[in-house]
């Protein structure tokens, strides 16, 4: 269907964005790539009289390193992130994830911030950003605050962001020497049925692990029981230690049967993917350790 006519605003500064938002309240929405919002408007599941295009707001653009964090501006597209030297060097697992999101048309226009703000459960970024312990910086006319990725998504299409707040940037801790992350997903439709993210962090020769699932539920799911069960287990022993706990945990994940697959199949996929992701993360941690040694 067609878009219902709307007034288009093209602010060049955050102040101007907030002004417009304040003026039109519930009748206005911001957008960047429009890959989610315009589809929802065309399908008439959302209606706004005012659309605010963020693409000219300089404060929201750019990808840079600040201290021990990679900072991704809200306007960075998946394609830019995937092909950015800083991302590839400092958060390689996230660059790899970006390259596999959707298709090139969506990657070229769609932004990471748009993906996170929309909070469609069948998405790739949230689980890995949770495993990496990324932080979202939200800004409003009243100031700014940081919200951990792990707490940002509350349920499907619902986030901790207030109506008057924007995502300004996403801050991802740089993957240090001896750390490795990996993401594995599977699905036979357009978007992932299940995603699994793993981190392997070596501190003083002792490994610890971070494990998160995506897409299978309505928000990223922390696999804390698996993490606890394998804490300290050396990577080489994971093939013995991991499968049973992964299976047990996965079979308890609450998920519904839908077009992406039956619940038990998705639970099985979760178990398979987390094992694959963790193996890849451990390998990445080892090679990163070696490279930086």
């Amino acid at each position, binding site marked *: 269907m067609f878009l219902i*006519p709307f007034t288009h605003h093209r602010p060049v500064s955050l102040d101007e964005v907030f002004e417009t938002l304040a003026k039109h309240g519930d009748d206005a929405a911001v957008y960047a790539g429009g890959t989610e919002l315009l589809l929802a408007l065309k399908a008439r599941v959302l209606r706004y009289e005012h659309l605010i295009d963020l693409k000219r707001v300089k404060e929201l653009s750019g990808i840079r390193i600040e201290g021990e964090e990679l900072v991704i501006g809200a306007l960075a597209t998946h394609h830019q992130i995937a092909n950015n030297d800083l991302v590839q060097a400092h958060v390689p697992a996230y660059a790899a994830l970006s390259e596999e999101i959707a298709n090139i048309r969506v990657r070229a226009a769609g932004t990471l911030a748009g993906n996170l703000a929309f909070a469609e459960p069948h998405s790739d970024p949230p689980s890995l950003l949770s495993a990496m312990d990324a932080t979202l910086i939200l800004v409003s006319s009243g100031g700014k605050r940081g919200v951990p990725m792990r707490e940002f998504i509350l349920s499907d299409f619902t986030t901790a962001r207030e109506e008057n707040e924007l995502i300004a940037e996403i801050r991802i801790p740089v993957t240090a020497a001896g750390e490795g992350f990996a993401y594995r997903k*599977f699905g*036979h*439709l357009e978007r992932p049925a299940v995603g699994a993210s793993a981190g392997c962090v070596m501190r003083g020769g002792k490994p610890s692990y971070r494990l998160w699932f995506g897409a299978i539920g309505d928000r990223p799911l922390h696999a804390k029981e698996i993490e606890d069960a394998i804490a300290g287990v050396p990577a080489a022993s994971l093939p013995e230690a991991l499968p049973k706990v992964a299976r047990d945990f996965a079979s308890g994940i609450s998920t519904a049967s839908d*077009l992406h697959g039956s619940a038990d199949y998705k639970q099985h996929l979760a178990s398979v993917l987390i094992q694959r992701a963790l193996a890849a993360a451990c390998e990445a941690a080892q090679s990163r350790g070696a490279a930086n040694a």
Partner: protein
Amino acid sequence: MSSRAPVTPSDYIDKVTGRTEYITDVEVPGMVHGKILRSPHPHAVIKSIDASAALEMPGVIAVLTGADVSALNNHWGLYLKDRPVIAIDRVRYVGEPVAMVAADDERIAEEALEAISVDYEPIPFVTDAAEAIEASAPLVHETHDTVKDFYFKGEAKPVAGTNIFQHYNYEHGDVEKAFAQADRCFEAKYEFPMVFHYAMEPHCVIASFDSGGLTVWSCGQSPTAVQKVLSRVFGMPLARIRIISPNVGGGFGGKASVKIDPLVAALAWKTHRPVRVCLSISESMLTARRLSASIRVKTGVRNDGAILAKSVSVLMNGGAYADTGPAVAVKAANRAIGPYRIPNLKLESTAAYTNTVPGAAFRSIGGPQAVWASESQMDEIAEALGLDPLEFRNRNLLRRGEHVRPDLRPIDVEMGEAMDIATREMAQLRASDSGSETHRGTALGISDPGIMAVSSVLLRLKIDGSVAVVSNSVEIGQGVREVLRRLAAEQLKQPVDAVEVLTPDTAIAPFDWGTGASRSSLMMGLAIADAAADIRRQIAEIAAIVLEVDPQSVELCEGGIAIGNRKKTFSELLHAYFGIDSGELVSIGRVSPHSNAGKLTQAPLFWETAAGQCAVAVDEDTGEISVRHYVSVADVGRVVNRAAAEGQDEGATIMGLGHTLSEELVYQDGQPVNATMIDYHVPTIDEVPENFVTVLIESGTGPGPGGMRGMGEGAILPVAPAVANALAEGYGIRIRKLPLTPERVWRAIRERKER
């Protein structure tokens, strides 16, 4: 001449640079835009429709509903007159057109749809074919109004008081006796899903009434069928109805026979304005789809592998309107026979109405459904008998000249040769593959194209030696215009560049049955040969008069004629003849069942065949299949346009990967739940095998010029069973339900491990 034909067909550059004109690019003066309000209910009585609010909206011109069409002959159909121009009193599937708005632009029309209120009373519905044929099932249609020889030969055989709109039986030999004598019998049921054609261009039609009659720019694959149906609906003579067919962006049967043309024309009739309607892809998904099928096959064999008897029972889900389903049901039975010697054969096929999107012709109608069942079972039998599947096939293969069925034309290709080539090519591919282990699967498909041998063409030889081909063959992406161009050039001995193929227009192009069933290159090729013979005759007569030579000694040559060493340009010859240096010669070429000394009467005109072999690897933990290599082999007689012919072969195969791996229109509670391109996955370049080899055998044994036969539909036949057979070979699983989704594969592997 074909040897000098360019390698890149002339239409490719225009297509990839966006210059090719499709209907959506056509602007007719005064044109307004139509949008369709569709039923949200699978089955309901329409109690009332209130369009007053819509009609008051600025820019809205008219609203068409069932009440308007009472003045028309308002039900139409090519086998059964079961379809209303627009829903009258009742809707029979989710997506059925209920009301239509004409407005100044598409946006206003769409807004106005929301202002129309329809009061429905839902009634019991049925979406499953097996349930639809039970005695207690709600009837989708109370009566069956069949038409005979209307556009298809023969008529459908519905069963009164049931949802069955077609029933077909065939038998030779004594199947039951042979089963009793067989060493072993194998029986199983195979399921094939509803799948969507996914032509890249959704349906798009412009209709315009004026003092000259009705003109329609149609995306239909059969312009003369559209013309005929419109003539009946509006009670107008055929000669006052003109169908123009610009380039069409794919059809695959989803635009065959007649689809939205009567609906769009009715809105034009009501508004007295030209009306354009362009569907979205989701609307096209609610317009036509392949008939899903459940096919039971029983085969009796001797322990040495000889097939003694086979019985096939097909049940098809035909949707809310019969459309071309009656033909599909017959072909689904025939195409399950396979290229094998079967002394005792029994075929049975039933197609039933359900409250779902109308089923329709789709690339090799009924073929992929049938071959899925029969070629899956061939491997099951081979395995049970401890025979190599190729060897088991070989023992039963028909040789060229043997009969598939005594009443049909004997098979005219060597399937053994095609299978051997596929095996050889695949061995090479696998030998050069250093990746993980793959497993091979094979399947053979044969089909009896339902070609009506009724075609004609005009050739117009201009005085400067250029040639116009005037035909109703629709350029639908298959490259038919380039084929006709090359064939006309060859027949008239002129350079390809001298020939133009015009846009089909029923006002000037003569009758042709339609673009489908792998028929156009062949039928038009025969018609062109006939027309070219007439041009040669005219030229020779003129030369005899003007040059006083023996007409027998006149030959065509590039740019003119040759009599021995003496040459004349067309202009020199015709100038002398007409007295002015202007004019043209026109000839008509005709094909009918009586052409070529009656050789075109026996069905099928030729056998369309394919041997497919794949090599697959499965991720056993996810169930994901990767088809790494694929070889497709077919005897097409002769290749006229190689790039397009290989494209057809590759395209048909990749399309087959859709129903093999992921495609399936899913119904829940009467609703199609995945009828969008996000939830319904069509193969992309990611699913295309790493290595794909097409081998087109040029045996020169087809009925067309130079021994060509038709092609374009064969390669889709073996894909699904070849992949399923590879799964059985490599992973010990036999899945009898398509698509082979990762979940189904994973479950099958898990069950095998638990056994």
